């Protein structure tokens, strides 16, 4: 089985206070903030590795990011991926979900043979949760989101459990397909010292726009249909009354207020 895992380097949330938005482009100014593997993408990779352990095959990670994200790809290889494809090009910068999916879909086409594409349900930074379904649409293959369990039924047939609003559903799907995984799917493994050494021997293959046959215009900031009209600060229209001082006094006041509002 050949599994492609979409691995997105995202700014480490521990440093989010240092993040800023470029007011002109609406894109992120990362300013030297270290990247980590998007946590749900790590779970997608873990799911892929577990499938490989059971079924055999190959796990390839696919990432689109600035060149500085290289250590994050190395981390994916250390976790156990066999090969990393790194899409990096100034022309890709500022891509919205549609453009990202188009570029990644095109890269996946170039890889030609694949059974399963795994993503995380959402990323820490964008949170649009669009890319998995959009890659599937570009490739014309089925997809499912919020996946909590994946089982190979027989060759090319998967039983997939997916969370929906009122519970979950079990779905039978055929390869090739795209799944995006939910938080509860697994707990990713630790990276061992041996893994780190093995990861160093594996290849990170760098592809730029020249390596992909991007025939449509959906690339980068200019090729993204979604644009930011403006940024604005939310108006505070709340009363903003603040109580300070003796805890038991405040407790009484609070109980009293709740009483007057009719809650007790």
């Amino acid at each position: 089985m050949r599994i492609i895992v979409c691995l997105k380097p995202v700014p480490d949330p521990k440093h989010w206070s240092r993040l800023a938005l470029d007011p002109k482009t609406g894109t992120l100014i990362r300013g030297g903030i270290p990247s980590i593997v998007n946590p749900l993408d790590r779970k997608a990779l873990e799911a892929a590795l577990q499938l490989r352990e059971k079924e055999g095959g190959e796990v390839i990670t696919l990432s689109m990011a600035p060149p500085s994200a290289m250590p994050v790809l190395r981390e994916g290889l250390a976790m156990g991926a066999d090969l990393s494809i790194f899409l990096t090009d100034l022309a890709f910068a500022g891509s919205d979900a549609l453009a990202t999916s188009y570029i990644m879909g095109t890269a996946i086409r170039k890889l030609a043979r694949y059974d399963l594409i795994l993503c995380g349900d959402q990323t820490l930074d964008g949170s649009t949760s669009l890319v998995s379904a959009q890659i599937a649409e570009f490739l014309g293959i089925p997809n499912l989101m919020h996946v909590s369990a994946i089982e190979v039924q027989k060759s090319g047939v998967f039983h997939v459990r997916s969370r929906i609003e009122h519970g979950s559903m079990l779905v039978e799907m055929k390869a090739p397909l795209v799944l995006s995984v939910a938080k509860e799917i697994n707990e990713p493994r630790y990276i061992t010292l041996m893994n780190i050494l093995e990861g160093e021997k594996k290849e990170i293959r760098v592809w730029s726009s020249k390596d992909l046959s991007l025939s449509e215009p959906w690339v980068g900031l200019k090729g993204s249909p979604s644009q930011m009209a403006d940024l604005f600060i939310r108006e505070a229209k709340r009363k903003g009354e603040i109580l300070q001082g003796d805890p038991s006094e405040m407790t009484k006041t609070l109980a009293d207020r709740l009483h007057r509002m009719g809650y007790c």
Partner: protein
Amino acid sequence: MAVNQRVKSEIWVFAEQRQGELVDVGLELLGKALELAHPAGWKVASVLVGHASEKALCEQLLSFGADEVIVADHPLLRSYCSQSYAKILGKLIREYDPKVFLLGATAMGSDLGARLAVRLRTGLSAHCIGLELSPEKKLLAVVPGWGGNVLARIYSPHTQPQMATVMPGVFNMPQEKEATGRIVPVDVDLNPEDVTYKILEVKREAGQEHALEKAEVIIAGGWGIGSREDWQSVEDLASALHGMVGATRPPVDEGWAKENQMIGQSGRTVHPKLYIGIGISGEMHHMVGIQNADFIIAVNRDPEADIFKMCDLGVVGDFKEILPGLIEEIREKLQK
């Protein structure tokens, strides 16, 4: 098969249904769409896709004010499948060229919207918490920006339809009134191969998933609660006030609270009459989920916590010194 009438509406709203029942967000969006469309001289259509249960649902949508209800009925549409649904809707949208297409940011809406945006090569603003129509009749979708108090208005100036998925609970349900709209059945051309997966089983999870969205009183806890043991006091306050328990992301990650209790950008959007946030700093990701609460009370020992800038009543103090007494006082008052 029905002979296709022309659809005239400029804004289409996906009327999501599950097991023959309309999902609230489809109605909330219908209400908002009507509010945006009518001053601009536009009309609004609800789009219903499925099989066999359509008649009653159409009536319902009309009673909530839809100018048109587009009905795509076919046995193969009985269960949701992103590819078959996207195929039908993609074709309809190409044929009638609406300006705006809106969906709920539910499991189904997010998935379907994403696919449609690719099929139609247009932009989609995901998980929006507000919608506006500019004087140039461009759809501006409000999405929370990075951290801080920043919101961004996103639009797709050059492509059509302009699409957005909107968080459930952001808009209010529209008022029911006398139906004046019409039903527009459309042809459905679908092959069994278009349904690319088979649903083997649907399991309902115990507990009311939507209760948090409907709750009048919500007590939410954050990272500041500190431990599973102390989380109990959040639960206790909620039960004293007959409210429900919500959480920010960290308590969910820590396992103190359940995933379905998470409020905010990647969780639920709620609009209770009373919200009490305990040990919550006020990160935007959470605050966008409670912006429609009528009254916000915050308890936090850090006087600099952002939540104090966004609340109606702030209590600067350690919840451990306040909650036990408060719960006692509330119980006493209720007994009287």
